[in-house]
């Protein structure tokens, strides 16, 4: 009884790490609260729909595509929104309102274009390319659920979890093994000093913003498999959940998000098992408790209390 929710929570949680990590990158680097984060997840899901329904390809191929598209979208949006926002007295607060407006625009445009009903992709299509290649190489085609420790889990969960781990690993490589990543960390820890030392902060931030949105979009590709279906109104709830995960891990530390996601996933599954009707209260209570008891998050160091 206990093993099942624990494993499910781990898989679910790893995926949630991916859901939150982009939000955290954007906040960490720019002190900007991207309230439209969930809407970029939703847009990513639609990239997946396009790849599958228009091109007839494995939705997994939408992952690199969504990434490329949304890095560019992010850099573009950065250019038109952020420099102006940063000029104001209190960009951190105003960003909340600004991105709320953006989220309204995205939802409205998508509703006008695609209508309001639920959409998804059949589960077996995710990773169909891999199993085809596997077949060519003579491996036995694996369909249906994946068995872990004698318990069966949806294959899509496992694929999402693996992709999430890969994406988080790449974020780590970017932050700690590339020049731009090192500069990004410098901006994260001391923005003023980074400016003073002549780092092109705008370039660093634009890249981080683009990557942040792109990470949300690739998480979105998996959303139809993790949540059953997606509608243009999907964004708002996804944003709130992302916040919970990010705060759990520690706001401003993208890698803490990985831990936050797993803790969230496991807790959620345990509550669903033992106290199912209260499951929705959990994320908010967790968030408040973490903020009050350990304000820097599970992995945070910075103090953020008044």
């Amino acid at each position, binding site marked *: 009884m206990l093993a099942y929710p624990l494993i499910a929570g781990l898989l679910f949680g790893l995926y949630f790490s991916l859901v939150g990590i982009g939000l955290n990158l954007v906040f960490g680097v720019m002190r900007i609260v991207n309230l439209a984060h969930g809407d970029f997840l939703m847009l990513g899901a639609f990239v997946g729909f396009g790849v599958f329904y228009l091109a007839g390809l494995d939705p997994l191929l939408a992952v690199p595509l969504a990434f490329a598209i949304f890095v560019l979208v992010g850099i573009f949006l950065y250019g038109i929104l952020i420099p102006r926002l940063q000029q104001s007295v209190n960009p951190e607060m105003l960003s909340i309102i600004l991105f709320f407006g953006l989220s309204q625009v995205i939802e409205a445009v998508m*509703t006008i274009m695609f209508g309001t009903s639920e959409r998804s992709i059949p589960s077996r299509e995710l990773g169909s390319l891999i199993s085809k290649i596997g077949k060519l190489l003579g491996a036995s085609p694996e369909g249906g659920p994946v068995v872990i420790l004698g318990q069966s889990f949806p294959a899509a969960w496992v694929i999402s979890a693996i992709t999430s781990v890969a994406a988080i690993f790449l974020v780590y490589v970017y932050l700690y093994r590339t020049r731009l990543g090192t500069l990004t960390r410098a901006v994260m820890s001391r923005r003023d000093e980074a400016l003073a030392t002549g780092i092109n902060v705008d370039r660093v931030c634009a890249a981080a913003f683009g990557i942040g949105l792109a990470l949300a979009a690739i998480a979105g590709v998996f959303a139809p498999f993790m*949540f059953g*279906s997606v*509608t*243009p109104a999907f964004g708002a709830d996804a944003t709130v959940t992302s916040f919970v995960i990010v705060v759990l891990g520690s706001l401003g530390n993208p890698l803490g998000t990985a831990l936050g996601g797993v803790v969230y996933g496991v807790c959620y599954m345990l509550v669903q098992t033992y106290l199912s*009707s209260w499951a929705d209260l959990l994320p908010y209570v967790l968030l408040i408790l973490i903020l009050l008891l350990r304000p820097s998050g599970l992995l945070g160091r910075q103090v953020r209390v008044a």
Partner: protein
Amino acid sequence: MLKRVIAAFAVGLALASQALAADAPSEIKIGTLYASSGRYASISMPVHSAIKLWVEQKNAEGGVYVKAFDKKIPIKLVAYDDQSNTATAATLYNQLVTQDKVDLLVADSGSVLTAPAVTIARDHKMFLFDQTGTGASFFSKDNPYIALMADPVSTIWPKPIADFLTKDGPALGIKKVAILYSTNEFTGTQATAVRKFIKEANAPIEIVYDQGVPTETTNYTVILNNIRAAQPDAVIHLGYAPNDIAFLRNVQDVGIKFNMLFCIYPGLETELLEKNVGAKGLQHVFTYVPPSEMDYPVNFGMKMADYRKAWDKKYPDGKIEFGFNAVAGYTTALVIEKTLSVATSLDQMELRRAVFSLSGNLKTLDGTFALDEMGGQVGELTPLGQLQLNDHGHIKFVAVYPHDVATGKPVYPKP
């Protein structure tokens, strides 16, 4: 002097308007709301689209017949977008009543957006044509200003499931039942009803699992594992469309097989569910049989096939699903049309009398319209059915209960 002139003028005006009142208006104003975005958009848009279709159709024929003036009068649909926001909805309902002075007031779809209309209609003594707001709290003996058009009230709706379980179940080998429901008014009330009907039946049926989960739940893997542990013969899942989609996909993905599985929306929004879950995932699922599958004898309005054709012609892009809600909207329109054809005036209490006079007599593509004394819909009941794949791999409905409408035998247990 001036005062006297004004007074005389006012009297003249009053007389003139009285004289005008006897004349037929140039149009009948029907006021309603819809949600083009937000949480309730997916249930609101089909209903609203159906009404628009009807209005267009009637106006092309020169309007609807209004008995009060004994002639055909065009309809003017005054519709505002409430964005799924209830405060906005409240203002807009009031706008319809006080500013636009609509002749008939029609609620938005779903209980949450209907709720503000209930109070406003009652306050302004306007009769509310409640389309799909099934909330039990809306209907009370002291409020004559409401009737439910298209969906059965939640407290009666699930009776066929419970009857099937308690009457046919034991013979089939169904002993243990699991109930999983989303904790909102719509499905929560149905769960309560199922529980009550099963208990009252005194049949050898045991409820081995009975849990509510938040309506926002979209992930059922762990819950499925828990249900499996209770070893039920039948699983009744009561949730909204997104819940059903997630639930049925999880059932497939985890590879669990339940001998009997009931969900609401495969029957109500079959197209939507088939698109999201796939035909295979719906095979052998028990559900409500929608009117579109029953081909009810009709004594008013289009038959199902004609309606479907008209719908596909008007909304060819498929952005709005044709399903139970599309039928619900059209049913409301038909009740309105019929009401206008029998009401002797547009007075709101007369409208009420006219609506209630249709109870038991009006047969539309949605079944027989029947109201209880408080205005709750008790006709238009949906039989219990099962989805089976035909030889071409397409889904077909087999009605299994009540027996008088049954079109086949249930497949139990699921092979």
